[in-house]
């Protein structure tokens, strides 16, 4: 059976060109970038080039502002704990939103345990943070604002530049988790005007396990991994050279014709959204209709539960995801959908289909063909349907 992958918000396939670029860095150019000799220099050169490419993709002024990490989670942990640690004598208040990724939320909760005070801002029914709420939440002791650029579940894109203006006026460090945005939409750290920005390669066709934290020059932050002097002393550990090379190549490819690719994916997305709305009743599109990632489709489908939708789709060869997940012995509805005002019941029936450059018109047609039957099968089994 030919399978269709529509879970690109979870992770993407590595671009074969990216893999090609990486290959020599396993078995041939295998030196340690910190080593003095020629093997080391070759690796060092490769890391330098990759750093330039990543800096380019997000329009950083200086490649030195890019620190490679093991992925989005580390970037978020580093940014938030690093600023908290560094500025804790100045204040202990952090502002975030209630729809952040767990890498941000659980890090904030960890800091609450350590005596920090965190404000979780609400969002409207489209998942948007109101900059006025940010302003109102600021206190004397606010040291950090961390709000994501684009949401991983519903794709809503936040007004970060407006929020960063408020941060700047109040002299507060601002971080954005741009893990879902980088590679999908144009991201410019100067337009966004943020101090810190997290990105993760596997969301845009580099391998998993490699990411970066953008740290604007002059930003005060404690390091996260202690040890050797790698990454100008900001992240110890022997560099993941092949991964870094892959991230660099993926960044370069992502930047090429970005707007064109964005338009194409958006068009597929809209076809999928419109098609689903046409074929299936009693459903709700989650997330903002237009301030939305090009590849994100998220519906709540009433009377049925997400995991069983996924199973039916999987059996039909379609890989998708849901905000409903049985994590540790209980089905939990997505904190994002709940924060957007959905009832738990409706939130449990959510389905996310996320596209990448590899998805085609035919993929969309297949989903539009399969999904209605999946829904009606499950509804026929549901004790709360038609009652």
């Amino acid at each position, binding site marked *: 059976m030919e399978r269709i992958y529509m879970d690109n918000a979870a992770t993407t396939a590595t671009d074969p060109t990216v893999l090609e670029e990486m290959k020599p860095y396993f078995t041939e150019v295998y030196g340690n970038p910190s080593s003095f000799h020629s093997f080391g220099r070759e690796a060092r050169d490769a890391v330098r080039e990759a750093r330039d490419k990543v800096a380019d993709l997000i329009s950083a002024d200086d490649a030195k502002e890019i620190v490679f990490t093991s992925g989005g989670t580390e970037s978020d942990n580093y940014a938030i704990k690093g600023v908290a640690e560094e500025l804790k004598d100045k204040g202990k208040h952090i502002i975030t939103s209630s729809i952040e990724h767990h890498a941000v939320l659980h890090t904030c909760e960890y800091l609450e345990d350590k005596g920090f005070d965190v404000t979780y801002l609400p969002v409207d029914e489209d998942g948007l943070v109101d900059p006025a709420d940010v302003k109102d939440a600021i206190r004397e002791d606010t040291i950090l604002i961390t709000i994501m650029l684009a949401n991983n579940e519903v794709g809503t894109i936040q007004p970060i530049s407006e929020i960063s203006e408020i941060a700047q006026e109040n002299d507060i460090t601002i971080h954005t988790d741009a893990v879902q945005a980088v590679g999908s939409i144009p991201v410019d750290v100067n337009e966004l005007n943020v101090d810190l920005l997290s990105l993760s390669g596997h969301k845009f066709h580099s391998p998993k396990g490699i990411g970066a934290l953008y740290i604007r020059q002059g930003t005060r932050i404690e390091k996260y991994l202690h040890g050797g002097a790698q990454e100008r002393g900001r992240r110890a550990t022997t560099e993941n050279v092949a991964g870094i090379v892959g991230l660099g190549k993926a960044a370069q490819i992502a930047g090429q014709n970005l707007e064109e690719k964005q338009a194409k994916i958006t068009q597929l997305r809209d076809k999928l959204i419109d098609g689903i709305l046409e074929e299936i009743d009693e459903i709700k599109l989650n997330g903002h209709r237009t301030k939305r990632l090009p590849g994100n489709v998220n519906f709540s489908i009433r009377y049925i539960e*997400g995991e069983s939708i996924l199973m039916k789709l999987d059996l039909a060869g379609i890989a998708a995801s849901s905000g409903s997940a*049985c*994590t540790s*012995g209980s089905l939990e509805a997505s904190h994002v959908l709940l924060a957007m005002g959905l009832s*738990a*019941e409706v939130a449990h029936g959510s389905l996310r289909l996320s596209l990448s450059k590899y998805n085609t018109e035919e993929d969309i047609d297949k989903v539009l063909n399969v999904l209605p039957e999946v829904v009606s099968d499950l509804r026929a*089994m549901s004790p709360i349907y038609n009652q």
Partner: protein
Amino acid sequence: MMDYSDKVMDHFENPRNVGEIEDADGVGQVGNPSCGDIMKMYIKVDDDNKISDVKFKTFGCGAAIATSSITTELVKGKTLDEAKELSNQAVAEALGGLPDVKMHCSNLAADALRKAINNYLGIETEEEDDFHCHHQHG
């Protein structure tokens, strides 16, 4: 995180005894939509106190659907006493095991069945299940 056995997948894909029994002798429901699962069982009881027919409707995860299905198979033709004894363990075993995090799902089906039997027998059951996600304490 689900890695279901072939048996679970079979019952999920081809659930047995789905539906309602119009003139059921007993009906039992557990779960709550806000917890992401509701199971409803309908039974017909014959003169020998045996379950002559049983049907279910389930809103829930794949394990919930599969456990509902196997439960109906396991109890069809059994006496009420036998059926009441059906343990969650037995349900899980009949399915070739369930992932750890899904073990609680097997409670639901057996609970719904017991409720249906009690309903037939005229025994009241507490309705605690309707107010919080009971499988969190499961």
